[in-house]
């Protein structure tokens, strides 16, 4: 199989998409003929206006949708052809963060994070230890017995981030993670994501906030009307 440029794919590619299209209605495309590669440990921004296909692309990557056409290879495995039973195993290797946090209001902060480790079948003692470490990492260890709705938006997103990182995923997908946050909290969350990237996690962040892209200077994939319009390489470390 060849890369978008026709070269043999690099051995450190984690995500490879080849001529991927997604259509919900006949004749209309949320994504059209997208071909791209993301290497292990890379930090990539996915930009574009609303309706450009950023969310669809992310949903394809964690197998919430199947592509209408094309192949999606994650760590050498074609996830476009995964059976239902194999999808949970794929998702255990991917952390996902959403704009609306997706936290359980009736569980404590600690329980919200623990759920990702319970699914992995980790022993209770290990779960307690790991959850505490994660909450400490995102600065919420003192809030672990609170309910999410009693916390600020930034704190809630930090819980979601801790949950996404709990299983030490190879790939972290963040769909507009700072869309509901003010600029100060936005940087707080982005710094945490950048920190995860620095420790080796491959990161893809969908955003329409150009200031973030400028600030962090990472590789940027720009989508418009479902087409991949631009693949801009990293400009340098955050300013």
């Amino acid at each position: 199989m060849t890369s978008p440029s026709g070269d043999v794919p690099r051995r450190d590619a984690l995500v490879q998409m080849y001529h991927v299209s997604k259509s919900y209605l006949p004749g209309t495309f949320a994504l059209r003929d997208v071909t791209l590669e993301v290497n292990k440990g890379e930090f990539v921004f996915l930009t574009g206006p609303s309706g450009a296909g950023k969310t669809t692309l992310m949903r394809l990557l964690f197998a919430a949708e199947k592509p209408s056409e094309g192949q999606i290879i994650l760590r050498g495995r074609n996830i476009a052809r995964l059976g239902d039973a194999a999808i949970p195993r794929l998702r255990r290797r991917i952390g996902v963060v959403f704009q609306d946090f997706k936290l359980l209001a009736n569980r404590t902060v600690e329980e919200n994070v623990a759920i990702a480790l319970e699914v992995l079948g980790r022993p209770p003692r290990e779960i307690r230890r790991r959850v505490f470490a994660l909450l400490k990492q995102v600065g919420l260890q003192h809030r672990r017995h609170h309910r999410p709705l009693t916390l600020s938006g930034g704190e809630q997103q930090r819980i979601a981030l801790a949950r996404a990182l709990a299983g030490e995923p190879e790939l972290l997908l963040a769909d507009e993670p700072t869309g509901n946050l003010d600029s100060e909290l936005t940087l707080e969350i982005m710094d945490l994501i950048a920190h995860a990237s620095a420790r080796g996690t491959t990161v893809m962040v969908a955003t329409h906030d150009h200031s973030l892209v400028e600030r962090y200077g990472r590789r940027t994939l720009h989508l418009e009307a479902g087409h991949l319009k631009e693949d801009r390489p990293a400009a340098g470390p955050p300013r």
Partner: protein
Amino acid sequence: MSRVGGDLRYFARTALRGLITSPVTTAVSVTTIGVALVLVGAFALLISNMEGLLDRFGDDLRVTAYLEEGLDEAAMSALARRVGTVEGVIEVQVVTKDEALERFQAGVGASTGLLQALEENPLPASLEIHLAESRRTPEGMRVVVEAVDGLPGVSDLAYGQEWVDGYARVVALVRSVGLGVGAVLALATTLIVANTIRLAIFARRDELEILALVGAGRSFVATPFLAEGLIQGAAGGAVALAVLYALFRLALPEIESGLSLLLGLASPEFFDLAAMLRLLGAGGVLGLVGSAAALIQGVRG
């Protein structure tokens, strides 16, 4: 704690949390299963007591072969030995004319002047034929009667066939109605439980979405709901047992007086331990099947 231990802990915690955080739906499920099992249980109680009554009646059940006049004791004994060889007969007792009269006198009371007025004993000698337990049915009795009927020296046979036939028909009818009603109630309860669990699934769709996001497999998502159904069903069974027992105690005096007037037999009995466990188990199975039905439609991994 092992993976299995951790999972079990998670399932139990999640199932209990589901039951506690949705008290109304839980109460509806438990009550529905309870009401259905009260009706099914009442039928089962009625049938088991009727069968018990038939068993007790069967202990006293015998065929009486009245003998022709003029048989001497040797002939009666020979006839008794011959009847004793019939399959299903466990004992044959010879009742002479004199013994029959003594029994009659004992039965009606010694003070009666009626018997003293008789010049000779009008009662026939007879053989009392006791049956094996397996023959204490209308069909079993008929086989023995056919074998004894027509033997030389036997003039008539009495065995309360109509009563036994009628009673067996009533038991069969009640059992059929009970099974029919039980099946309809079980189906209705399963559907109601399935709907209740589906509501619970809908109420927790956020949780299911998040579980799916973090990679929970279908069994991991489904097991707490199945456990909830099982607990609700068993609780419904316990409620049904309590209600049935209360009704049984309340209705017992009426039933007892009615039965003693009718048959003079012993008191009706409540379920034994095995039957109680079966009722609890039936509740659990109803809850489990209801949950499974809801999950098949409601959960997508």
